[in-house]
């Protein structure tokens, strides 16, 4: 039984020894460097562009401006193709632009023989701009008469829905109604490997793109769309990738490198973004402002949640049009017996484009909801954990929006486990009536999330298994390993179903769209769930072929045989080996009259999307004069169904917790509200947490067995990032009596709140 064991990561040895090859470790002779010419202002139009000086520099091979690229807008969001044109992504990008919409926008590109020359030449492209008024906030962008960033205006869309009751009526007759306004910042993914891609042609027609991406098959389609080529003329290769967190669920460099190699006769051309470019000119997490109301009854019921939220998608839509819809609807599983109403507006502004980032809008939406729920609990004098336990989802509840029954839900157990682990009641009592400079508080928050994107998007995954001559198997999938451990989880599933040791299952980690099975890639915490049925079907089919061949070799009926630990056995007496798999494989390949290469392949669509659940508990100290928060203990408890690999699962939780602590306490891209200038687009000035900033991290799982999933599992990759921030905020409130309604809770912000409350 391999599922449920902490088997060693498939790629761990390759990575600790430095043998794992990432995009930049796969050089090509004659590789050219391309470098963008970027706008120094946040909004304007190019009135003159002169490339003469750049072209004159020795070593420069080409310069293209926005006037030289196809005038065809395309969408960059890494979604599957939508058959229904109404669901198509927003096509608002061109390869280069003469209408610059944020500081860093791309007006030209230079190709040279080496990096230094390309950079020097890019600096010599002279550009004059006509400056346009700048809008940075929701208020400014949506104001009457605001300068439009795109032809349709600054509002990308507004989504409204109500479910589970009439919110206005509930608010009217509720025992208590609370209301607040919350704000979350723009943050950056900060994956350690910056965006990088190169492209070349290997014949007269085909373009090969090698790229650090989460979504190779989608990249293929979007490159073809952007360049108006048949899809089959593009091939995308994804090597090891140094983190993505959603920022590589977007098509950023690939259309440009493909365009450049096409223009330059097929020579390899690379773009390797600097860290500073990665900050400003890839994607970020949407900043949001939310106005929320909650109604509670004295009986402890959470009667209604009314949420109005504005999401700033920056200069281009990227995923913006989809994120609020996804996150608002996913949150409906959290309090399914509560009436909810959402109004979510997504708008453009002159800041870097926001896109997908771990948990796709849910951290922002749940931050507001879990702050509101805390206020509602207090308003009716209830303990925050007890209030949540009273109101959260339970198995058998029906989602008020889509009518689906929750087949598994361990959220109450998660909250109970957290309460026990942190010794909630005793520690809360100890926190009462504090008046010193340093005060301690406890906080909690909980979430619901989805597993994949169905029914918004198609869910399709493929797997191919090949029995090798030595009795091991190779697994190919279109799903991508991006650090989360997907390959290893898939190998465990194969091992479980096929009856082979995990070590004998080799996963081909790299994707090549010419040969890898089709799959849309790593996002929405979908892969372990969506790939499971494909892996299972392929493994069962391969096992059938293996046993049929064993029957040919041994003269026994296949039905009496089984495969265990890499050996063919009688199903009744599995201790006795009839035949080793390696002998069987050799026979299948090389016997002159019987057998074949034994392979199996499956491609499966999934039409379910189970909710996963969990919560964060935190115990912290606030030094009021220093305006500093110190976390003493923090952990998440998750219901992600069956845990396929406990050690790797724990790693996902730690990573999400740490990223969330950064969001809650430290990180924010600072952008001038007047002129759109970005102040801290680098790792020195932008405060990504270091070893010194992250406390000991904990986690626990409440395992349920999801009946719709191949191996009982549900989503886990993104969810851990959702609740730490509201839990920390609620704990700061508990410690100090001050309700901080914005993050990051930096000393500067806390100073404002603490002095406002008379604590300083």
């Amino acid at each position, binding site marked *: 039984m391999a599922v449920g064991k*902490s088997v*060693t*990561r498939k*790629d*761990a*040895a*390759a*990575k*600790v*020894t*430095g*043998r*794992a*090859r*990432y995009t*930049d*470790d796969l050089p090509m002779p004659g590789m050219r460097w391309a470098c963008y010419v970027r706008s120094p202002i946040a909004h304007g139009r190019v009135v003159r562009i002169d490339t003469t000086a750049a072209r004159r520099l020795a070593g420069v091979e080409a310069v293209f401006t926005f006037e030289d690229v196809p005038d065809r807008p395309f969408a960059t969001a890494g979604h599957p193709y939508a058959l229904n044109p109404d669901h198509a992504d927003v096509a608002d990008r061109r390869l280069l632009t003469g209408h610059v919409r944020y500081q860093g926008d791309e007006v030209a590109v230079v190709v040279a023989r080496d990096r230094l020359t390309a950079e020097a030449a890019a600096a010599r492209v002279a550009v004059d701009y006509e400056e346009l008024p700048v809008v940075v906030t929701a208020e400014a962008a949506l104001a009457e008469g605001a300068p439009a960033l795109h032809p349709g205006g600054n509002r990308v869309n507004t989504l409204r829905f109500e479910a589970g009751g009439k919110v206005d009526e509930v608010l009217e007759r509720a025992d208590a109604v609370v209301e607040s306004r919350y704000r979350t910042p723009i943050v950056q*993914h*900060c*994956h*350690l*490997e*910056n965006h990088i891609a190169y492209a070349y042609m290997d014949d007269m027609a085909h373009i090969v793109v090698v790229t650090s991406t989460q979504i190779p098959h989608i990249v293929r389609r979007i490159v073809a769309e952007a360049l108006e080529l048949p899809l089959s003329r593009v091939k995308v290769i994804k090597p*090891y*990738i*140094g*983190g993505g*967190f959603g920022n590589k669920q977007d098509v950023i460099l690939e259309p440009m490198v493909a365009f450049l190699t096409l223009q330059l006769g097929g020579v390899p051309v690379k773009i390797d973004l*600097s*860290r500073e470019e990665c900050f400003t000119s890839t994607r970020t997490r949407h900043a949001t402002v939310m106005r929320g109301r909650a109604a509670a009854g004295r009986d402890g019921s959470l009667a209604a949640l009314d949420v109005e939220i504005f999401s700033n998608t920056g200069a281009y839509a990227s995923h913006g049009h989809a994120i609020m819809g996804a996150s608002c609807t996913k949150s409906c599983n959290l309090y399914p017996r509560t009436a909810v109403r959402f109004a979510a507006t997504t708008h453009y502004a002159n800041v870097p484009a926001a896109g997908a980032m771990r948990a796709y809008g849910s951290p922002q939406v749940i931050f507001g909801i879990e702050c509101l729920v805390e206020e509602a609990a207090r308003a009716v004098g209830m303990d925050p954990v007890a209030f949540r336990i009273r109101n959260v989802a339970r198995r058998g509840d029906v989602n008020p929006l889509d009518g689906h029954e929750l087949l598994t839900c361990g959220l109450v157990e998660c909250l109970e486990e957290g309460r026990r682990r942190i010794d909630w009641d005793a520690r809360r009592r100890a926190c009462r009536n504090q008046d010193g400079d340093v005060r301690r508080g406890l906080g909690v928050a909980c979430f619901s999330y989805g597993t994949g994107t169905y029914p918004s998007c198609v869910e399709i995954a493929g797997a191919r298994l090949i029995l090798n001559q030595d009795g091991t198997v190779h697994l190919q999938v279109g799903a991508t390993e*991006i*650090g*989360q*451990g997907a390959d290893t989880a898939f190998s465990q599933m194969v091992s479980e179903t096929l009856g082979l040791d995990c070590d004998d299952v080799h996963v081909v980690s790299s994707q090549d769209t010419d040969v890898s099975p089709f799959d849309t890639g790593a996002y929405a915490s979908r892969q372990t769930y969506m790939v499971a049925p494909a892996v299972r079907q392929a493994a069962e089919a391969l096992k059938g072929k293996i046993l049929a061949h064993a029957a040919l070799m041994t003269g026994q009926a296949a039905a009496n045989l089984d495969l265990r630990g890499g050996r063919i056995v009688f199903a009744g007496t599995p201790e006795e080996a009839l035949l080793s798999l390696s002998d069987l494989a050799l026979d299948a390949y090389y016997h002159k009259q019987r057998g074949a290469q034994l392979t199996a392949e499956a491609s499966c669509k999934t039409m379910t999307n189970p909710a996963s659940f969990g919560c964060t508990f935190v115990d912290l100290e606030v030094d009021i004069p220093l305006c500093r928060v*110190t976390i003493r203990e923090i952990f998440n408890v998750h219901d992600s169904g069956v845990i396929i690999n406990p*050690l*790797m699962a*724990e*790693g996902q939780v*730690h*990573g*999400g*917790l*740490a*990223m969330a602590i950064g969001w809650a306490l430290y990180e924010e891209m600072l952008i001038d509200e007047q002129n759109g200038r970005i102040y801290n687009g*680098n*790792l*020195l000035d932008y405060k*990504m947490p*270091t*070893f*010194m900033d*992250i406390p*000991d*991290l904990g986690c626990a799982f409440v395992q349920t067995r999801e009946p719709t999933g191949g191996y009982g599992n549900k989503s886990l990759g993104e969810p851990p990032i959702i609740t730490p921030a509201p839990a920390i905020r609620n704990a700061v409130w508990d410690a100090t009596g001050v309700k901080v309604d914005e993050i990051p809770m930096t000393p500067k912000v806390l100073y404002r709140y603490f002095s406002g409350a008379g604590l300083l």
Partner: protein
Amino acid sequence: MRKTVSCTINGRAYTLSVDVRQSLLDMLRELGLTSVKEGCGVGECGACTVLVNGRAIDSCIYLAVWAHGKTIRTAEGEAADGRMSAVQQAYVDAGAVQCGFCTPGLIMTSTAFVERHRGRKVSRQEIRRAHAGNLCRCTGYETIIRAVEKCLGRQAEMPSDDGD
């Protein structure tokens, strides 16, 4: 302008002609030592960490010519004779590897730390401080600390804060 640099890399003597403007990072990568990763190129992230005479440095802001006469170690060299070093093995066992882009640099920082503290139990705070120059976005650092503890053993920590 070019200069000749003689140094020892992963136990082997090299004499190389390098551009005087070149970083040690580029020199090592050109030799095929691609464990040395560039995450920022300006000394912020630690992905390019190598050991120079036993000390962990950011090779992106260390000139190649400064390597003259020095002994350099990278993650490739730590796995001798097909076996991983104790630090590498501890990372594997602790689950301290995810995307792996920070990993070779962190392995070298941990290696220097473990060698310096051999035979001593260390506190989590000491481990944190010594690794603070290496960023990792995937692990939250927890399993990396565990890997280092595995190599050295853990010192009982004072219950109250040490005040940084």
